[in-house]
């Protein structure tokens, strides 16, 4: 195969930008699955929900999708709190989270997807913003702004989350609850309340990730399914609960996927993430930066 140098460089750059975006998508699952041990496979459905809200407000009121998603943060935070409360009362407290909890989230994923199909139909939807369309040109490298803006926003989101978790009191409590719930209880903190906050934060990131997703590509309700594998692949590859690990894994996956799409065709790209995931699970289940 004749690999031109320009094509290779551009594929890698596109992969880096894509990887930054994947980091935003994974941030939420890193918290819920990595730290709280809640296998929230419905997370991509919440991301798609975020996309549709950004789409709806953008089309009707012309507000920038990223601003919409920031305004929606409290709503998603509250939604996460409610979902966690139901999950805790029905499954975690009874010790049935493995089988029924999984089925619960799977059902939630399905219900969200079908509801979106009933409301918006299966057509692809997209948003309008000034930065969709133009590109920066640096020599042979093309930087499409529709990829660059989500990537930078994603990195900002990731940085803020990392600071929140390592520097604030609540963030440290979340780390504590992921390490030893009983010990936290002995310190007179309510682990359930901390977990509720953490899960709320995790769902809140879906709002931003959703807006970024619909900037990058047109969205239809079942797009979320592709992301289930991606987010869990990244999360596991990076090592559970390790935010820096997740960032590295996200960028790695973005680059490999972009190279695959460029040189073998886009129809092979979804298999990359899942192939990665299967191999990681089989050979290095603790991930790249795992404990």
């Amino acid at each position, binding site marked *: 195969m004749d690999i031109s140098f320009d094509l290779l460089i551009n594929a890698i750059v596109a992969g880096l930008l894509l990887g930054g975006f994947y980091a935003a998508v994974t941030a939420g699952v890193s918290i819920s*699955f990595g730290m709280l041990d809640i*296998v929230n*496979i419905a997370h991509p459905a919440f991301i798609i929900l975020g996309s549709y809200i950004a789409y709806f407000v953008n089309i009707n009121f012309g507000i920038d999708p990223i601003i919409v998603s920031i305004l929606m943060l409290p709503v998603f935070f509250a939604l996460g709190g409610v979902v966690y409360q*139901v999950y805790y009362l*029905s*499954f975690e407290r*009874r010790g*049935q989270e*493995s*089988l*029924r909890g*999984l*089925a*619960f989230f*799977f*059902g*939630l994923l*399905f*219900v969200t*997807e*079908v*509801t979106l*199909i*009933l409301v918006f139909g299966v057509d692809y939807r997209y948003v309008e913003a000034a930065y969709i369309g133009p590109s920066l040109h640096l020599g042979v490298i093309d930087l499409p702004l529709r990829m660059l803006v989500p990537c930078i926003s994603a990195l900002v989101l990731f940085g803020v989350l990392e600071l929140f978790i390592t520097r604030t009191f609540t963030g440290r409590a979340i780390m504590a609850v992921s390490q030893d719930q009983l010990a936290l209880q002995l310190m007179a903190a309510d682990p359930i309340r901390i977990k509720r906050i953490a899960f709320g934060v995790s769902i809140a990131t879906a709002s931003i990730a959703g807006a970024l997703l619909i900037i990058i590509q047109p969205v239809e309700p*079942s797009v979320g*399914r*592709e992301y*289930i*594998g991606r987010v*869990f*692949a990244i999360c*596991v590859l990076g090592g559970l609960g390790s935010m820096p690990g997740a960032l590295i894994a996200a960028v790695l996956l973005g680059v490999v996927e972009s190279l695959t799409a460029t040189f073998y065709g886009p*129809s*092979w790209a*979804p*298999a990359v*993430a*899942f*192939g990665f*995931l*299967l191999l990681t*699970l*089989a050979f290095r*289940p603790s991930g790249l930066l795992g404990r």
Partner: protein
Amino acid sequence: MSHVNTTKFTLISIVVAALVLAFAHAMGIDYLFFAGYTILQFIVMATAWNILGGYCGYVNFGSAAFFALGAYSSVALIKFDAEIDELFPEGLAGILHHIFPLPVPVLIVIGAIVSGIVGFGMGYLTLRLRGAFFAIATLAMAVVLQTLIVNWDFVGGSRGAYIIRPENFELGALQVSYIEYLFVLMLSLAVVALVTARTIERSQLGFGFATIRDDELAAEACGVPTLRLKLIATTLSGAFMGMAGAPFPYYIGYLQPQSAFGLEYAVNSIAMPMIGGTTSWVGPLVGAIVLGSAQQYATVTISSAVNLLIVGLMLVGFVIIAPKGLLGLVQDRLRARRSS
């Protein structure tokens, strides 16, 4: 029915199946066969899911992939039959024409073998990990397989494949419509699946599965060969799903990766045992009949999107409100009456 032994149970199931068939035949409506086929297919799928999910406690989200594998191995063999003359020299082609096209029961066996092998491989790769990882890995596997099928032009790729369903099925002097033939096949599969599930439940294998579900670590410490048992469960479960999928191309007539790998198969095969009850073979049966009939009714009267919403809501509702399913509700009611 707990005192009935396996032989008697098998006989009873066959009699029930024969009665169902006699009734459907007497009605003589083709739609009844079409609708009945779907419900029977779900009985097989739900029972297969329950062998791994209900007995061992391992959640499989990739049911659709096993189902699609069964369906696509049939498609591949049917396509192979159509292209024998181009692929082989004349003499060999003549011999192959005697063997092909393969009858549907053979396709079912092949589908079972293919899906069973994939189930085994899947289990071998992931079952040494915690439960949740297995669930995610099954999802991942479904997408990998779907990508492979989409990129495999021989079976139609993303465009899908047309399979012509013969008008009638003939065996000697007996002649029935093809859909009735498929219905009979699926009915027999349902009987086989239920008998197998019930036999497992009351054998040493079933008790081994139950120990894995209740506490895998303790089971291993007591000398239960957990990995081997889990591999048996994934293989069996996958094989039954493949069987359910193998006749599907003939039923649907046009098979497309998106429909064969559709999330509705995955969600249905989880929802049905969950709604019926996961601890016994009765659960998936009841769940499949209740949910399957409700869906047929909703598809005809409202719309197919709404019927999927119903499945999702019922799944979420049941796991929250009735963790033991319909079966558990009935048992609790009986127990309460006996003690009062």
